[in-house]
């Protein structure tokens, strides 16, 4: 197992290096620069700005300087927000986005697994079709539609919940978490239904039933463990996707997370910010994929046996 993890960590290094290099040169080749604005910038001012941000050096020197700083954990100053470093902006946005992602994922798991298992117990009946139909709607419904709908109903007509903010008013974290989580809930519902259906038709389940175990014990003790492997495998990329994809929800609900910076950095040609967020998120995705692989391996007795044998 340790060797498996180490091997995967080693594989991650070239991946991240390629991401850094590709991003660095791609953003530089995009037309327009961080200091272009609608009002013409005087040439002497532009020169001064480029000197302050070391953009007057040759490109390869900038690249190596960036790699050097990155080695020291320094992502550089933001171009768009003078006086703030990219580290600081990531540091302020990440906890918020992570918290939002965590709530969304918890909601998605709770609702998704429940609906999926529920549907798998009586396939092709109403008990299957209703939750699965809702799941299909959930997958198709984009968050920029669901968010405003929830806000209209719960925030404005019923006036139960605040419609924007994060930690400013009691209950303001509920709607964004549900909005962000529901597409994942729907996906998890379908995955857990498929996983459960496969497991429930296995011989060992029949054995369990034959020896007279009550149905709920069959489900919770025997079926769930195997039936949820596809869900676990999905969780790693899902969490990374939640972090990277929270932009829409953060914008709808005025949440001070990372997503807004990530998307706007590209529009602003905020070179260091684009690089910083991309490098950071790609590292995170690699990391979460690794974790979900490890958990899936640990849950699957056959794979586990392989590792014990020294894969």
């Amino acid at each position, binding site marked *: 197992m340790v060797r498996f993890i180490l091997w995967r960590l080693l594989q991650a290094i070239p991946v991240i290096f390629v991401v850094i290099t590709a991003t660095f040169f791609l953003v530089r080749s995009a037309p327009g620069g961080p200091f272009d604005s609608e009002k013409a910038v005087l040439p002497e001012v532009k020169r001064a700005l480029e000197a302050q941000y070391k953009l007057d050096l040759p490109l390869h020197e900038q690249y190596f300087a960036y790699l050097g700083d990155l080695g020291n954990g320094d992502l550089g100053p933001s171009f768009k927000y*003078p006086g703030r470093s990219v580290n600081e902006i990531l540091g302020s946005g990440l906890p918020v986005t992570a918290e939002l992602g965590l709530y969304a994922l918890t909601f998605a798991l709770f609702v998704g697994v429940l609906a999926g298992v529920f549907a798998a117990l009586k396939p092709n009946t109403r008990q299957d079709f209703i939750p699965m139909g809702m799941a299909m709607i959930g997958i198709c419904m984009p968050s920029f539609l669901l968010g405003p709908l929830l806000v209209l109903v719960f925030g404005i007509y019923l006036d139960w919940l605040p419609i924007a903010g994060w930690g400013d008013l009691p209950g303001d974290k509920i709607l964004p978490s549900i909005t962000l989580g529901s597409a994942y809930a729907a996906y998890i519902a379908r995955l857990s239904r498929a996983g459960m259906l496969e497991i429930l038709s296995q011989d060992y389940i029949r054995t369990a039933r034959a020896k007279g175990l009550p149905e709920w014990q069959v489900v919770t003790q025997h079926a769930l463990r195997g039936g949820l492997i596809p869900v676990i495998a999905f969780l790693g990329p899902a969490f990374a996707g939640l972090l990277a994809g929270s932009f829409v929800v953060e914008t709808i609900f005025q949440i*001070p997370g990372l997503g807004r910076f990530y998307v706007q950095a590209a529009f602003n040609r905020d070179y260091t910010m684009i690089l910083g967020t991309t490098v950071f998120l790609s590292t995170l995705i690699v990391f979460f994929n690794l974790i979900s692989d490890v958990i899936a391996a640990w849950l699957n007795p056959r794979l586990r046996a392989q590792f014990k044998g020294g894969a």
Partner: protein
Amino acid sequence: MMRLFQSLIPASALVVLLTACGSGESNVESGNREGYLHYGNGAEPQGLDPQVVTGVPENHIVRALFEGLAVKNPKTLEPEPGVAERWEISEDGTVYTFYINPEAKWSNGEAMTASDYVWSWNRALHPDTGSLYAYMLYPIKNSEAYSKREITDFNEVGVKALDDQTLQVTLNAPTPYFLQLMDHYSSFAVHPETLLKYGKMTDRFTPWTRVGSIVSNGPFTLEEWSLNRRIIIKKSEHYWDRDNVALNGVYFYPTENVVSEERMFRAEQLHYTAVVPLDKIPDYRTRENSPYVQSPYLGTYYYLVNTDRPPVDNVLVRQALSYALDRDKLTRTVLQDTAIAAYSITPPDTLGYNPPKLFSYDPSKARDLLAAAGYPNGEGWPGLEIIYNTQEAHRKIAVAVQQMWKKELNIDITIANQEWKVYLNSVSQREFQVARRGWIGDYVDPNNFLDLFITDGGNNNTGYANDIYDEIILERAPKAKTREARYSLFTEAETMMMNDMPIIPIYTYTSKHLIHPSVEGIYPNLMDSLNLKYVTLHPGRRLDMGSN
């Protein structure tokens, strides 16, 4: 088993609802009680350093934290005392002497001095600072040369501290709008010792503007700055006119999503919105006691024409295109009456100046002009492309223009959107035939619009070059003895320019806000300029959103 699941679902729904019930007191209610204004500010400010930032969201916060030598009256926009309690202007209009109010203090209690201004303007103009608004101070003698490193001694620039209380400013030429520039953040004083504690004078990105570090001189001080969440400012104890500041503080929210902002307003989470979504406006207009406020804004939306590219290198073609545009219809339909049809570059009533109206919507004249240019009824038309930066509002206008030109002139137009920075690059490199453009005035004076089109001006972008025009704008108008004489020169220049039609004016902007009925002291004006010091809150007045 079944029963377990069946009971779990409603139970979990109940948990969600119970935690949800009762969102409590709204921001507007608590704000009115405690004297705090909740303000939709449109975006996270880039920063709060007066000599570094540019942009509207920055302007609102910086002008609450700092104050200029002279401020604008919120109703009339005429200058009134700020840090300077009075000033004298020399006979020939080139020497301004400002007398600093002895009560004017920094937020740490220190008295403000004339040398703070000398230091701060040195910073604004210094070539290493890279201040995007350095040119705002270019009316000052030798300042442009200093900024371009032609001279290196700041003593040669026309700014002198005669003593602690007296600042003398010498200009190149009479500049009737100079006092207005004193209310622009690029001319604000910063506290030298505070900046030097964190770096050099010319450093752009030191943390001196953070909570706890920043020293400012305005009616409010910085209390909290949570990135992308909110900025809270509090009434200053040391401000000279603190007795006239009604608010205890302001919450600024970076309300980037205009639709969310409008919803926050409806749920009474905001007193004031930065903008209003276009599709909501007709509904707000029909309400009694509507919170919707619209007023003319010092900005023009127009199409740049590249005068070096065929077919628009021909002035007759440019005139034909302009005559064929039904601007009234465009502003009425596409823009829902939120804009005013424009026939020239300067907005109407810019400090009493009204631009010449040289043409109107006249399709038959347009067809004649196009025929005279060699394209009768659009025959032989080589095609024309309009570019705009990717945004739904610009697309709608481009489509309407495309249809009008097709209908009236029978010519084919293509429209192309470009991502913001790509578009900026195309415009500055003049890689276009027709490009969408907007210009918002920095100060209320026709000069701010007319000097765009001087030969090779940085914001000209059309290739328009006219020696006589340049001479009027750069030489003759500044030396005019009276306002009337100056305005008649402007009229002459603007008439000349609009006959050559290097731009196709489309509309004059308006500012649009939702303002809660409990708020008073926000007056509509051309600059959309708000002085938070005059804002008052009146609890008990409710937002009436009617039945829909």
